[in-house]
């Protein structure tokens, strides 16, 4: 008992001390702000000064720009920003980038510390939390004043970034799903290319024939991202993934999920896919069955299709997604990929908007950016780029153009509710249980509906 009293007294002492020390400490920190810089910081500041043109009339501004992605994307984005500085010497940049997962950790900490960068990349799946907390600046006034010129941009490509009628995010490109196939293998199996209105049943039948004739495997549709398949099937029957308020799923018919699981199981049981064990190992693109020529194709995001096609180094074709035979509504949508946002807290909104305008409309900048973030939204830029881009990028340009008129494309649903990430993880978990035949598709579908509604209602 003696111990507890010591704990109590020390506890209070502890608190007092913390307060005292933290007070002193913050004081010190502010005073010595510029006094104790590390060498690296100093050289950097000097570098920045050296690079600036000294007699510019405007106030000198440094914008923080942050995105996720590869080293290559970093190189081209920096290059495009340098081009901007060349044209507007009073604006310089401080860039940061990270891999997808690390990126969101970083942004969360920035948001918590009230220090979001002036321009940062965003995603449709993550944006609702930022909107709910009023962290993003409304870009509508800038569009109206002409500072952000969107006259060459289809309404379709803008609307994804509009929430409650206000524009909060500008997409640098458009993405959607397509089936990337290897025409050589299809021909080898004595088949012709599928028609635009092919169904998943056709997909499985084709897979069986191809395996029989050539021994090549089929891909399980989106084994890594089963949530999209559920969404696709739900949209195909005129429903949506989530209800309007985001508090429950947008459908209550388990057969939608069940049909997808049955499809997977049929492929596994027919032996035309890799084993579930192999399937779940995350492999680098260079080692994937498709790139190595071991399978004939599957559904991919269009910007990812570019990467695969580049790695495969043989002619591939992007064709339409198979249809869900029970539905007759459009299952696909044009996804604004790689949103860019300006936070409400930014001190340099005008300059940041200027950069967004430059990215959207400047042809030279887009030549540097190489449509790495999806098909450019401005039709002028698209036209100017069409001849200069690689075969694989051109393939997605054409596909997206065709898709815009297709009957399988409808308006995009509202952004995911905050608990969307958890629902996605749940679907992935159940999908694995199905693949390993631990539960039946019927049980799996029930489990998803009950658990997902539970998760969504709690948020």
């Amino acid at each position, binding site marked *: 008992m003696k111990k507890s009293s010591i704990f109590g007294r020390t506890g209070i002492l502890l608190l007092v001390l913390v307060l005292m020390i933290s007070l002193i400490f913050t004081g010190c920190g502010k005073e010595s*702000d510029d006094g104790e810089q590390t060498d690296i910081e100093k050289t950097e500041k000097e570098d920045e000064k050296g690079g600036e043109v000294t007699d510019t009339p405007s106030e000198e501004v440094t914008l923080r720009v942050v995105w996720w992605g590869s080293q290559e994307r970093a190189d081209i984005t920096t290059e495009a920003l340098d081009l901007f500085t060349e044209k507007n010497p009073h604006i310089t940049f401080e860039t940061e980038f990270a891999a997808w997962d690390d990126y969101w950790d970083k942004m969360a900490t920035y948001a918590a510390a009230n220090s979001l960068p002036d321009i940062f990349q965003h995603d449709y799946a993550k944006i609702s939390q930022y909107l709910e907390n009023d962290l993003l600046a409304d870009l509508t006034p800038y569009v109206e004043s002409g500072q952000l010129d969107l006259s060459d941009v289809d309404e379709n490509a803008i609307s994804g970034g509009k929430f409650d009628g206000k524009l909060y995010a500008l997409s640098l490109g458009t993405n959607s799903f397509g089936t990337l196939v290897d025409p050589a293998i299809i021909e080898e199996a004595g088949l012709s290319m599928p028609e635009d209105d092919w169904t998943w049943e056709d997909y499985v039948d084709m897979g069986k024939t191809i395996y029989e004739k050539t021994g090549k495997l089929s891909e399980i549709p989106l084994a890594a991202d089963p949530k999209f398949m559920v969404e696709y099937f739900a949209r195909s029957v005129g429903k949506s993934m989530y209800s309007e308020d985001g508090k429950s799923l947008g459908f209550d018919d388990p057969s939608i999920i069940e049909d997808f699981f049955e499809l997977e199981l049929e492929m596994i049981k027919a032996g035309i896919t890799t084993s579930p064990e192999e399937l779940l190992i995350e492999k680098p693109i260079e080692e994937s069955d498709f790139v190595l020529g071991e399978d004939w194709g599957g559904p991919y995001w269009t910007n990812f299709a570019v990467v695969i096609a580049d790695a495969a180094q043989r002619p591939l074709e992007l064709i339409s997604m198979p249809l869900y035979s029970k539905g007759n509504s459009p299952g696909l949508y044009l996804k604004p990929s790689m949103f860019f946002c300006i936070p409400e807290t930014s001190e340099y909104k005008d300059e940041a908007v200027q950069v967004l305008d430059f990215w959207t409309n400047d042809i030279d900048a887009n030549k540097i950016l190489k449509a790495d973030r999806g098909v450019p939204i401005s039709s002028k830029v698209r036209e100017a780029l069409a001849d200069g881009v690689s075969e694989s990028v051109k393939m997605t340009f054409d596909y997206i153009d065709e898709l815009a008129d297709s009957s399988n494309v409808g308006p995009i649903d509202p952004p995911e509710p905050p608990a969307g990430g958890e629902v996605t993880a749940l679907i992935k978990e159940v999908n694995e249980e199905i693949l390993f035949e631990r539960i039946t598709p019927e049980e799996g579908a029930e489990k998803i509906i009950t658990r997902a509604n539970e998760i969504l209602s709690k948020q």
Partner: protein
Amino acid sequence: MKEKIKFSNIIYHIIMILFCFLMLYPVLWMFFSSFKPNEDIFATAHKLIPDKWTIENYISGWKGFGGVSFDVFFKNSFLYSGIGTIGTVVSSVLVAYGFARVKFKGRDFWFTCMILTMMLPVQVVMIPQFIMFHKLDWVNSFKPLIVPTFTAGPFFVFLIMQFIRGIPIELDEAAKIDGCSKYGIFFRVILPLVTPAIVTTTIFSFYWKWDDFLGPLLYLSKPRLYTMSIALKVFNDSTTTTNWGGLLAMSTLSIIPALVIFFIFQDYLVEGIATTGIKG
């Protein structure tokens, strides 16, 4: 007798060489693959020795990204690991002695606190810590990483303590009779005797900071401030093709400094208490 010793020695070496090869196989794979042309790395993955040697990967990897090359990342890593290690070693030894050999009031309580701090996952204190460093305006400098190292690492304190507690107390008492204060005992008796522990601390501390990912990720946002660990991670983005050759080449280079530190300091490790002249 002599023959027998020689024979057992040979057996020992054969066993060790085989064992090292087995343990090192993955590392050797990385090393040799870094000299293969990029397209051969996975195609000839079953072969250890490259068919065609090239240093192209080292050249392409060294260029880095965003206009910053690997000499900057190396320099940053050295700065962080070097100063951080000095801070950790000096402060940890002092604290360890305090806990191990001085009977002060509240010692058990503070010791418990220290052990407890090791058990909280970093992910949880990360946000409040970041907010604090942000308010101090320390983000984007090495301060949030280096300053805390001067406040001792619990792991190392505990480690050195265990070594100090293995030193016979009679030595302390003898020194006390000779007129040494607690401070004198620390410098003249304890410090020379815990060399193995200090060397171990140096090696670990250097390497752990060299390898630290989360800290630099949060606090060093500009590519010019990146350390090796972040730079290497940037090579590998799952949404695009990776320059595997460059990645393996730079990974190989990144092991070298820690290995050199180990190689230099292990001699001191060998000269433990056994050779410092303490007999019975």
